């Protein structure tokens, strides 16, 4: 049984890749992921803005009140070593690389042009096998056009690609008005993979406290169908790899993703719910299913249910909605 697949130009032993999440903050957990069978790991994201805010916060509060009152000219010892930049993350990459044999894909969320370039270069130097661009960008201004939004993605990708040689994946939001065109442009600009989709935390309102706040809910299998559709549509239309992320919980979910055309299925909520050992269960389930259905390899089924290979391509298009309603009735 050949579960191997190719993602971002890397040959992976299977299509299961834990996605960027706090689970990869500990080296021991990354080791567990490898032991459980993960084919690669996407590390948690390095947020340029967070690094800068932390640096500003710490330097502000370490000095706050200093040189103001004769008895207390400072309030903190001056540490000789301070890691307020990306050093901690880079060190984590190095340690992860030492700890496991599977590829380590770093994840970066930048803010400034300089940040994207500097941090991606440093990530490459630290030994990452690939880089996932986690462009969390929610346009809220009415003055920003869809074209400008697309350009942000394209510019970042072009910038990063100019400075690193490791493969670069783009993690995307589903909110593009002409998604295949955007995907096409990114593919043409050199993306080594597209990761569908970034699952944004949606804020919730507290009507007692009259506040708004983040509300984290783990995904379920139903949520996989949004990326599933677009992977099925993109498969064969772009040359780069495709990763399915969001809603992968069961072996069947992985198989669906692959059949839609994904090269890998990224998992997170399922691991948070069930533990790292769930990777083994997924792999066992996939293998069993493939045995039962006499598939010999992942490559054999990849894209088999993509829009261009299914009997009813229009099922992926808008009419689908009508039919669903009919059948429901």
């Amino acid at each position: 049984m050949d579960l191997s697949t190719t993602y971002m130009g890397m040959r992976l032993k299977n299509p299961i890749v834990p996605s960027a999440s706090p689970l990869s903050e500990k080296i021991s957990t990354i080791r567990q992921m490898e032991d459980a069978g993960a084919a690669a790991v996407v590390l948690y994201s390095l947020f340029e803005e967070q690094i800068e805010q932390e640096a500003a916060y710490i330097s502000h509060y370490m000095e706050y009140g200093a040189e103001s009152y004769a008895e207390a000219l400072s309030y903190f010892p001056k540490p000789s070593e301070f890691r307020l930049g990306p050093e901690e993350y880079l060190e984590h990459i190095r340690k992860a690389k030492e700890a496991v044999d599977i590829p380590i894909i770093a994840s970066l969320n930048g803010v400034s042009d300089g940040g994207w370039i500097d941090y991606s270069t440093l990530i490459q130097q630290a030994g990452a096998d690939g880089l996932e661009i986690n462009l969390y960008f929610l346009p809220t201004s009415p003055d920003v056009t869809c074209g400008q939004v697309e350009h942000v993605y394209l510019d970042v990708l072009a910038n990063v690609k100019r400075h690193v040689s490791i493969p670069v994946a783009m993690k995307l939001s589903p909110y593009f008005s002409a998604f295949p065109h955007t995907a096409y442009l990114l593919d043409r600009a050199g993306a080594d993979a597209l990761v569908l989709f970034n699952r944004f935390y949606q804020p919730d309102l507290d009507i007692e406290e009259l506040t708004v706040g983040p509300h984290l809910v783990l995904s379920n299998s139903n949520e996989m169908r949004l990326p599933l559709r677009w992977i099925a549509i993109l498969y064969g239309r772009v040359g780069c790899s495709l990763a399915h992320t969001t809603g992968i919980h069961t072996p069947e979910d992985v198989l669906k993703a692959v059949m839609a055309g994904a090269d890998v299925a990224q998992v997170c909520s399922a691991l948070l719910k069930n533990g790292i050992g769930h990777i083994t269960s997924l792999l066992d389930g996939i293998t069993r299913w493939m045995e039962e259905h006499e598939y010999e390899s992942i490559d054999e089924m990849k894209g088999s249910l993509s829009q261009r290979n299914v009997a009813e391509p229009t099922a992926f298009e808008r009419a689908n909605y009508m039919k669903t309603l009919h059948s429901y009735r």
Partner: protein
Amino acid sequence: MSERPIVTIDGNEAAAYVAHKTNEVIAIYPITPSSPMGEWADQWSAEGKTNLWGTVPLVVEMQSEGGAAGAVHGALQTGSLTTTFTASQGLLLMIPNMYKIAGELTSTVFHVAARSLAAQALSIFGDHSDVMATRSTGWALLCSSSVQEVMDFALIAQASTLQARVPFLHFFDGFRTSHEVAKIEQLTDDDMRAMLPYELILAHRARALSPDRPFIRGTAQNPDVYFQGRETVNPFYAATPGIVQKTMDKFAGLVGRQYHLFDYVGAPDAERVIVIMGSGAETVHHTVNYLTARGEKVGMVKVRLFRPWSVEHFMAALPPTVKAIAAMDRCKEPGAAGEPLYLDCVTAVMEGGRPDIRIIGGRYGLSSKEFTPGMVKAIFEELAKPQPKNHFTVGINDDVSHTSLAYDKGFNLEMPGTVRALFYGLGADGTVGANKNSIKIIGEETPFYAQGYFVYDSKKSGATTVSHLRFGPAPIQQPYLIDRANFIAVHQTVFLERYDVLAKAEPGAVFLLNCPWGPDEVWDHLPRTYQRHILEKKLKFYVIDAYDVAKKTGMGGRINTIMQTCFFAISGVLPRDEAINEIKKAVEKTYGKRGMHVVQQNWDAIDLTLEHLYEVKVPDQITSTFDLPPVVPPEAPEFVQKVTAEIIAGRGDELPVSAIPVDGTWPSGTAQWEKRNIALEIPVWDPDVCIQCGKCAMVCPHAAIRVKVYPPEALAGAPATFKSTPWKGKEFPGWMYTVQVAPEDCTGCTACVQICPAKNRREPRLKAINMAPQPPLRATERENYAFFLDIPEVDRSQVNVRQVKTAQLLQPLFEYSGACAGCGETPYIKLLTQLFGDRTIIANATGCSSIYGGNLPTTPYTFNKEGRGPAWSNSLFEDNAEFGLGMRLTLDKQIEFARELLTAHADLVGRDLAEAILHADQSDEAGIIAQRARVAELKKRLDSLNGAESLRQLRNLADVFVKKSIWIVGGDGWAYDIGYGGLDHVLASGRNVNILVLDTEVYSNTGGQMSKATPRGAVAKFAAGGKPAPKKDLAMMAMSYGNVYVARVAMGANDQQTLRAFLEAESYDGPSLIIAYSHCIAHGIDMAYGNEQQRRAVDSGYWILMRYDPRLAAEGKNPLQLDSKAPKIPLKDYVYNETRYTMLVKAKPEDAAHLLAQAQEDVKSRWHLYEQLASLDYSGR
């Protein structure tokens, strides 16, 4: 020998540098101004820096200086090269061990930043009182006069002690030398090795205790041999001066700087000589050079080795022509025949065979009082008189004992070609830090000499800093403030209305003002006094809007780099481009560790500064319609007008002796006259949204937001903008309610806004209190506040003190303190004064609370309309519990005596009245008010009885029948560490005292050193790697007595529980202990969210709210009540909001994770323990 680096450092760093290189064990305890020496040593050891012999010195923080001295003694006895650093009261606490160490002929050096002793008042500033108190201990006393000498003498002392076996106290003037930044040559390891022969170190070790060659030391001796034993050491003392001189000679051969035990400077045929030691010697030296150049036959002797005093060397230093000597002492020994140096000079001259020399003694410079060339000149002039004044003072106007010399205040020896710059900044704006940076740049990157000295005020919020910087081609020998500046920068416009800073500008000087006004509009914003100075002195005037530049470059409110750039751009001290380049390099060095982003922001700010710096085209006449306002309003009391106002205005030096109270007694209620206007924004009340909970007033650290209820008719004559709304409570039906802000006293901390639970439903971002810019509100709100204060206070007997909302109606008798904006301590003290202030005596441990409580010019403790209020005193740091107990003992004794007298005279004064007084129930306000009325009646009756002495005694003691409350207040440094022994004893005494521990978990007042209250994992000074041990559970220890009321409170988490605890503690007739979580600037938090952090501390289970009331046990109930619930958030959600924890994450992430895990486990196990204790069944007892 390797080349010696040139460094710009202060005296403390210079001493610590040598001490750290030449010792193995360092036991320390923080005390101003010596604390930085210990901090440097700790930091270097934490960084793995080794001493001369390749090992990292062990630095240990002790619980007191007494403890440090004991540890030093022990380490010395077992053979370590050991040192400590201290000052003032700390040195006094070391004296017992110093006698031992000297008696045992033990080699060691203590480095002391000499400081005043607490007498009529505490003072953190410099003089020789502390050192002089040790002169009978048998220690050699070696004095440095400048930063360079501090480094040199630290080594000379170390080398000498090893040879002489006499311990050395190496001292230098606190602040003036310990904190002066100067350009000096740094000694190298080779220098130090050459000075410290290894065999002497081995000999030191060979004298140590060892079970391998046992002996005993520290015996008890009887009349038969003790005396002889004391005399055995004489040869060592006799040899010491010679050893020190030889060491100085060796040092000179090595380094090139020649010192003598007594260094003479001046005319070889001098007739008049000043003898002096410490930084003042530099001033005399400089003045002598000036006078001798003009042919005057004057000279001076710098005393280096004060003990052992060598008559021979002293006499040899004097020119044979000397006719008169003035011996200058920087201390005061009341009642003595003279101060120590004077007496030694008299003895030396007599024993030295020159009785013809006339000697006068003078006192100068106490508590860092300025000592200037004008004063030196006056001393020489006095010496020339046929009958010079003896035991004189100089630098003050003594109009009481007429000791003072008049001097020419205009005489100065500022050198041409020297840049003399004054910078007026606020503590928060980074002015001092930037200036220290500038000194480093100029000192280390140019051939110029540089000197920086910084003057801070005593406020912790809105503090003024004045930086005095000198740069020039010649060495700077001027350890006094700049009086004539050629560059003056005012970094905040608020100073324009506070100080006449341009009075110190010399003609043609540069004046730089940071202000929001452009070059074309600034002129009319200047007071007339400023305009006059600018025109008369033809000042060059520049403006910059530094806050605008800071905002544009993402620097927030930090203007330090911007103003520094301006200085370099217009002062001409360096070529502009070179200067800018150097500032940028300095920025990278300073902020590099904090990330390139911070560096880049500063660089951007530097570049943008030059585009926004404008020279003002000065008009040719004074046009302003306003001038500097009066310091205090005309309605202030006479004392405040005449004395306090002068201190506030920065003219305290001009006050004569007669203006100062003789015994340290000062009036309370004075903070109200010091309107500081430091808030940029103040809270504005929205009555429509307000739910009248009183929380805003409860948490306000400065009593600058208050609530009142009053009958509607009290509104008659209210200003048009005065706000009012019907009171919603059940009490006082039909009354009105107002929340009023004191606009000129508010610090703008926003604690009230953050705690306000009421939200505007239409716009939830708004609350019942919202911040708004102060300037446009100042005038109207000042009027409103005055009206508010005039509304009669509520009848205390009618107030339900058990509810926060009503308890807050009580008048605070602690107001407008200079504590940090958002201080976590002061709300507790304020609450104390609201509840019991009119009948409270407070014993206050030294620390933050004694500084904001009692540092001149003003005190926040005040009194009510009846003239009653807290009586407050500070004894020491270490004895506060005992001090408070003493107050209790007086009260107990006086009550007992008064009861005896009243019982005896009951028939005379009226039995009914006597019985009522003797059996009065004073458990509530009504009872106390009724008792006050009875006592008033008693006094009236006693006044009418022309009776025996015992009746007069009763009249005199009658007030004690009204219940008094003793509060012992202090921080955790006192309660957990230095004062713990006394605290424990007082708890065990069973006496009715109330102890309030303001627990900031760190020594806040001295700058964040670890205490035993510091939690596990928090970074503090002396715990740079995060404190490895958990916090001491003081509550648990106190509970173990069984008869102590104990409460742990956190106002921000549960104000109602805090209120309850204060009431219960006060009502308990026995010792009570309240441990109050006090968020602090030393936690590295946004103080606006201090109360939110308190809530998180409680929610995480870290800070368990509890009350232990022994009265409950007597009722068969469990005395321990838990007032908070089981932990509901992880500890990290609390601690990682604070820099004291997060900085460890950034410095040592693995250690941080490990300590966090342990600390989380602490939380769990502590909760488990408390929960079990609280569930014990007491019913069967």
